[in-house]
Every structure is written in structure tokens, then in C-alpha cells.
């Protein structure tokens, strides 16, 4: 590790590498930009060729990136896109918060008690391999076609990765650290608060990130089945009217939101797990 890096770490502020413009980094950035541009070029090229020469399918079914952008602008002007984004986001957040609360607290409880583990684990192992989607129609029957069924569905789907990673994190704490803490006078409560919990934190955060990704994954399906708003509804509604650019717009917006949230969670992770981050640099 070079000296300036150490100096930065020694300062009270979080470590932040200096934005230095070296040519190697610039090259990588350029290549990555080319990759994205190439994707759009291929898409636009194919769409154009299809409409003019190939006639592979009906041009309506293969809109260009510009068509999608145009649709996006139209739907933003009418306010439809924003309200759909808001509807989906609010469902995802509510479902995710419930899953996070249940997953983390149950994971901790089960991780600390072999009795609870023997009692609950087989039950959960029974449910885990069933794709959450299989339960969606039932959820609609149980919780109705309103918000509750979608929130419950998201909560169910996101629960598993959060619960599992929390449980593993709590269970597989380095026994040496527990011995060290015990010989420093820690009681059971101290041990949990100061050793088990921080040791499990990387696992818990990974679980939360996975759970959040899954929430986004399943919201679309939930909104396909029974909804009158949301990005899944936007896509499904467009399908009925052959509005392919609107369908692609829905997919693109979901992608963008998912990407943004994943980035935000990663930043949060880097801040919370600063001690681990420094090991990677």
C-alpha cells in the first residue's frame, strides 16, 4: 500500500481514492462506453434493417432505441410513467422492509438457538425450493387483488435470502474470536452485540442486497397478474395493444431502477464494512 493511501486511511474521513486521471483507467472507461454504444448501435441497426430490408418480423414488433425514448418522453409528459414507477417502488419498498425485518430477526433468533433451528429449518427447507411465483395466484386469492397481495408476495420472495445469509452469518462466527472475547471478560450479551453481530454483518448486508434484487425481480410478475398500476402493469398493458416500445420502456426503467438501487446499497455496504473494504484495496 502506498503512503498517500495510508495517510488517507489515517484521516478520520472515509477512505476515498483521489480521482487521478491515468491513461490506463481512461482506456477502460472508453472501452466500457464503446460497449454500451455498440449495444445501442446493434439494436438500432437491426431495427432499421428489419424495417427496410429483412422484414424478419413486423416493424411494429422491433422498435428502435429512439422509438423507446420517444415513448418514454410521451409517458413522462402524461405523468403515467412516474405514477407507475412510484407504484412499483412503493410496493417493493414495503415488501422489502417486511422481509428485511422478518429475515434478520428470525435469522438471528434461529442462529442463536439450536432448538429453534431444528424446529424451523426443515420447514423452511421445504418451502425454499418452491419458486415464489408458484404461490402468486394463491396470494391473490388470499390477499385480494389490491396492494396487500403484491407486498406479501415480495416479502415472501425476499425473505429467504435475507434469512439464510443472516443465519449463516450468525452461526459461522470464527470460534477463535469468541474465545478471545470470552477471555477478555465478555458475557453472552456482549458476545452477541460486539462479536457475533459485527461478524455476521457482511452476510446480512449481502442478503439484504440479494433480497432487494429479488423484490424487483418478482414485482413485475406480481403486477402482470393483477394490477392497474406499476411497471409490470405498464408492460402487460402494452402487450395487449402491441405497444412494443412501451414494453421495452418498462423493462429499461426497471433495469435502471434496479441498477441505481444496487449501486446505492453497494455504497452503503462499503461504508458499513469499511474494515473489509480496506483489505481489498
Amino acid at each position, binding site marked *: 500500500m502506498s503512503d498517500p493511501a495510508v495517510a488517507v*486511511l489515517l484521516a478520520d474521513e472515509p477512505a476515498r481514492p483521489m480521482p487521478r486521471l491515468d491513461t490506463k483507467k481512461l482506456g477502460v472507461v472508453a472501452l466500457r462506453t464503446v460497449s454500451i454504444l455498440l449495444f445501442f448501435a446493434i439494436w438500432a441497426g437491426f431495427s432499421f434493417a428489419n424495417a427496410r430490408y429483412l422484414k424478419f418480423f413486423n416493424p411494429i414488433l422491433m422498435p428502435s432505441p429512439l422509438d423507446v425514448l420517444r415513448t418514454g418522453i410521451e409517458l413522462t409528459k402524461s405523468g403515467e410513467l412516474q405514477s407507475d414507477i412510484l407504484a412499483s417502488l412503493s410496493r417493493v419498498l414495503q415488501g422489502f422492509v417486511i422481509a428485511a425485518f422478518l429475515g434478520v430477526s428470525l435469522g438471528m433468533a434461529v442462529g442463536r438457538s439450536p432448538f429453534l433451528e431444528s424446529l424451523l429449518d426443515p420447514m423452511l427447507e421445504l418451502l425454499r425450493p418452491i419458486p415464489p411465483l408458484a404461490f402468486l395466484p394463491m396470494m391473490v386469492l388470499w390477499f385480494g387483488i389490491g396492494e396487500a397481495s403484491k407486498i406479501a408476495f415480495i416479502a415472501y420472495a425476499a425473505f429467504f435470502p435475507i434469512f439464510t445469509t443472516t443465519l449463516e452469518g450468525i452461526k459461522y462466527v470464527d470460534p477463535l*474470536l469468541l474465545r478471545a*472475547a*470470552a*477471555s*477478555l*471478560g465478555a458475557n453472552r450479551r456482549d458476545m452477541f452485540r460486539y462479536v457475533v453481530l*459485527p461478524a455476521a454483518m457482511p452476510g446480512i448486508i449481502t442478503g439484504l442486497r440479494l433480497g432487494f434484487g429479488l423484490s424487483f425481480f418478482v414485482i413485475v410478475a406480481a403486477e402482470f397478474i393483477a394490477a392497474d398500476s406499476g411497471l409490470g402493469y405498464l408492460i402487460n398493458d402494452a402487450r395487449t395493444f402491441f405497444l412494443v416500445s412501451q414494453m421495452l420502456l418498462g423493462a429499461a426503467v426497471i433495469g435502471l431502477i434496479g441498477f441505481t438501487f444496487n449501486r446505492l446499497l453497494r455504497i452503503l455496504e462499503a461504508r458499513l464494512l469499511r474494515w473489509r473494504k480496506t*483489505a481489498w484495496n
Partner: protein
Amino acid sequence: MDQMATITRTKIRIEGVSKTFDNGLTALARVNLELAENSFTCLLGPSGCGKSTLLGMIAGFVQPTTGRVLVDGTEVTSAGADRGVVFQEYALFPWRTALENVEFGPLVRRLPRAERRRVAMEHLEMVGLKGHETKFPTELSGGMKQRVAIARALANNPSVLLMDEPFGALDAQTREILQEEMLRIWQQDRKTVVFVTHSISESLFLADRVVVMATKPGCIKAIIDVDLPHPRDRTDPEFIRLERQVKQMVREEVDKLGVI
């Protein structure tokens, strides 16, 4: 020699201790040993002689199958803050900075924040790590990590310091420097130290008494009192004579293990 002025009191008493693991392996058989207060004892022997198991029993991590371990006349049943432990693998909390690691003992003893900080700073300074307070363990070298671990154990002011091959993972140079540091710290603040090692030179350099352990089953082979004055010179003829003598004993035990 200042010890001789005061009446030496037994600090740790090991009474007929045996340990048989669940897989039927006997790690220790009928070990009796008395360690005086403020003494520096090395448990020396090849792998498999049960020296770490014995240390683990004093620490309270391992329960003897028969016999008992007494510290200050009380039977050891669990780990406690009166017996600080330094591990070969450092066992630092990776999410705590050097300072926060040393603060751990004072923290769980519920000392006020300012007092915790003061105690931790003082001990980090003692091990020569002033200026490294805010570093995480991953940013420290092996030698520095072990210095933090020693400071952390001592910040609790334990009456016994148990060290399980603490310098075993360090390179030869760092090792010798830390041995000297260890002696300096011990001479400032005499704890009863039990130090496990398989290095003959290390044991003769540090200890008042070297307990040479036998293998198959683990038990005590010989107890050697080392009365060479500190700082000891590894090239001193008497040091070399002792080293040769102990080497012979250890070799016999290694040979018992067969092919290793």
C-alpha cells in the same frame, strides 16, 4: 532475582489433569504442575504433546477429563478476564481498529469512555504502536497485529497472561524483536506468564522455567530452571549448553511420533 525477596506463592496449580478427546485420543495424561506467581514459564514440546490443550485448560476453553486446574485456589470452569490470552492467529476483531481492539476489555468491563480510551492508548504506546490507532487489523503487519493482541490482553490487567505460540506465525527477525519486547513488558509489569512454544531457543531466551513435554501421551518430561540473567545472549556458552541438552530431550519425543 527480586522475586526471591518476596515469598513465592503458587498462582496456578494443575492437579492430575488428563484429557481424552471424543475420538479416543489422549492428549494429556496425569499432569501435575505448580506455577509460582509472577513467574515466566514456557511449555515446550513438539506438536501433539498437549501443550496447547494444557494452556486451553488454564484459559478455561477446554475442560479436563480428570483432575482440575486451580488459579488462585479457585477451580477454572470457564474463560475469564483474570486470564488474558494471546493467540498464534492474533484473533483480533477485524471490524475494530487497533485502538478499538485494545478497548474491548475495558468496554465489556463498562469503564467510562474516556477511561477506556486512556487505558487503550497507554497500552498501544507500551507495545510501540503509537500512531497506528485508527488502522484496521488488515492494514497491519503480522508483528503489529500481535503487538495489538498483547496490548489488548494486558489492557484488562489480568493476573495471568497465557500465550499460545504467539510468535509462531512471524518471520525470524520479527520474532526475535517481539521476544525482546515481550521481556521488556514483562519486566515492567510482572504477570504470571505461561507461554507455549516449540522453539527451544525462544523458551530459553524468555522463561525462568522451561517445562519440556513428552508425547504419546502428553505429559511432563522435565522441568528446567533457567537462571541466566536477562538480557540473555544466545551465543553464551551456558545458553548453548542448555539448548543442546533440551534439544536432545525434544528430539527423543519427536522420534516417538514416528514419521512426521
